[in-house]
């Protein structure tokens, strides 16, 4: 029996116990274990949408939108490496593992990034031939688990990224559930097939920034000082972490805010640990500036980057480049309405799918099921990603030209205002229509 309109209009959802909270309590009572899922934080946090560009007017000249050049090139790793990374666009592909993703997805990412002249990144589990072969510029992650780690792959990488933390779970390790441990994944990681594989949260052979300096030196010795070494951190105590990473000898700092994605993490971790990307960028830039290392040690920002507006705003705040993960997967086909029927069978819907951990992804992206993975054509996936990156780049240039900039790196904080008091305080950008930055000018 359904409620009539009058009765329905009297229903009032609790702000403290809305339906999704009630459903989670009921699920926890039934299953006795926390929810593990993929994707990133779903809660609303202050982000780049809370900033606006001012654009040029009387005091500044804009550049002609379709004619005047606006450069997007980026050089990363100029501090110590003999061979810095040269990118054509300021957008890179973030680290995502083979294991979490199918080989086809990794190949697609490499193809798309290479079309656009940018880099892609390995993940926990080592380097596959698919991604090395199809990535003109490949960053090799150096993670606590050291799954698949070996000096030959280090030497054929274009850069090394030491992963200290990840925005979705700073302070947490990884988990690849047994259903995704195929023969190939098991062999690459030296573990039995089908078991839940844990990735440690701490590196096994160094503790703290003093050790990290020695570790970075070892990696440089192994690779004969040829390639840049990045240090990736999840956004938490960002000012201090960036300071310590630079002091330890990083060429590049990769900063991942709490909106960053994951393949499998506890929901409570994703939603309740770390700080948003917006304040983290400001803190990182302040740390670099205080050491007089801004633009000498490059800053890559990730965590909820979705379009050219996010990119332009991150660059304006002082980043050298951004990195995308979740957005790149969506560009490949993740959460596509094409698979709505299959999403429904999994108890979800296109636009809501976040069960990257369970290996049944109908799009063939976050799975090791061979039949599902075959659905993703790496050539087509690569093309889609390249289209998306191209669109992001054009959007970034559009905003930069509107502010009169001939290089996207010429964007600056003074080009922006904040829409909310929270964003003004976090980004260190004045509230629109005022000169007020909460916490300053007192």
């Amino acid at each position, binding site marked *: 029996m359904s409620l009539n309109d009058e009765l329905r209009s009297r229903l009032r959802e609790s702000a403290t116990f809305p339906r999704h909270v009630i459903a989670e309590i009921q699920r926890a009572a039934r299953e006795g274990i926390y929810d593990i899922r993929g994707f990133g934080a779903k809660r609303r946090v202050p982000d780049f949408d809370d900033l606006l560009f001012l654009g040029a007017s009387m005091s500044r000249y804009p550049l002609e939108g379709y004619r005047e050049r606006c450069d997007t090139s980026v050089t990363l790793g100029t501090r110590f490496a003999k061979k810095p990374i040269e990118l054509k666009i300021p957008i890179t592909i973030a680290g995502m593992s083979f294991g979490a993703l199918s080989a086809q997805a990794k190949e697609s990412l490499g193809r798309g990034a290479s079309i656009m002249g940018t880099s892609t990144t390995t993940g926990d589990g080592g380097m596959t031939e698919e991604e090395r072969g199809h990535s003109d510029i490949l960053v090799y992650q150096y993670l606590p688990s*050291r799954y698949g*780690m070996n000096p030959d792959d280090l030497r054929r990488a274009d850069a090394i990224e030491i992963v200290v933390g990840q925005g979705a779970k700073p302070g947490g390790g990884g988990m690849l559930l047994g259903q995704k441990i195929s023969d190939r994944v098991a062999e690459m990681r030296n573990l*039995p097939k089908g*078991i839940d594989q844990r990735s440690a949260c701490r590196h096994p052979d160094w503790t703290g920034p003093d050790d990290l300096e020695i570790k970075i030196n070892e990696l440089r*010795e192994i690779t004969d000082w040829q390639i840049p070494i990045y240090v990736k951190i999840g956004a938490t105590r960002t000012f201090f972490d960036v300071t310590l990473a630079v002091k330890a000898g990083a060429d590049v700092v990769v900063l991942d805010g709490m909106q960053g994605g994951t393949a499998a993490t506890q929901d409570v971790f994703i939603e309740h640990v770390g700080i948003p990307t917006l304040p983290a960028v400001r803190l990182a830039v302040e740390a670099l500036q205080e050491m007089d290392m801004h633009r000498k040690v490059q800053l890559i920002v990730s965590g909820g980057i979705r379009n050219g507006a996010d990119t332009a705003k991150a660059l304006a705040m002082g980043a050298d480049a951004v990195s995308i993960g979740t957005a790149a997967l969506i560009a490949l086909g993740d959460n596509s309405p094409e698979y709505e029927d299959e999403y429904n069978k999994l108890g979800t819907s296109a636009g809501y799918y976040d069960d990257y951990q369970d290996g049944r992804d109908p799009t063939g992206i976050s799975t090791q099921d061979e039949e599902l993975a075959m659905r993703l054509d790496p050539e087509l996936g690569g093309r889609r990603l390249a289209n998306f990156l191209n669109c992001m780049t054009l959007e970034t240039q559009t905003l930069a030209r509107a502010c009169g900039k001939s290089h996207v790196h010429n964007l600056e904080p003074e080009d922006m205002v904040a829409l909310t008091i929270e964003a003004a305080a976090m980004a260190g950008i004045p509230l629109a229509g005022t000169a007020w930055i909460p916490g300053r000018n007192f």
Partner: protein
Amino acid sequence: MITFDLKNNKVRNLNQSLHDSSSDNADFLVTNPNGKHSVAVAAMYATNITIDGHVGYYCAGMNQQAAVTVKGNAGSGLAENMMSGSVRVTGNASQYCAATAHGGMVVIEGDTAARCGISMKGVDIVVGGSVGHMSAFMAQSGRFVICGDAGDALGDSLYEARIYVGGEVKSLGADCIEKPMLAEHQAELKSLLKLAGMGAVDSSTFKRYGSQRKLYHFNIDHAGEY
């Protein structure tokens, strides 16, 4: 014999030489290491390297084919992520010895500090003395022989590595249990001791430890074990 005196020469020059094919089958003598870090890392060829003195962090890290002997003590991360070849230390080794190492053999004639063999992935480790706490943490595969005692939480969250201990074990880590010492295990142990140049050690009293495999799949009823 190619001699590198690190009093007058740089570690950088030594490592560059070891990454050159001309080092294949050559004999290197390294003098005056004086605790320097990253000595002889990722040596790619079948080179015999003798280091006369104490070394700092990551000596022989990611060793690929070389046979490295340290006549002295070694700092943290000795032979970390070693792929093959061999590393011998005549004295003691500090923490994280042979961390994540994939292959080859590491021999410590003295003692090692904490976390020896952490996340080992196929290497064989033989320690003549005792090992510190959390040794063989999350050890994945390979064989680990401890002639002396083991500290707290030996083999915590162990996967498929096999551990042999001649002395006392202060405590076992989560999911690590004593297993029967069958004839095949005695034979394996003797073979490892012989390869390590410790064939004279009496192996008859050694005990074997391995994974109970209860934590291979997350189970809420085992949450208290973590």
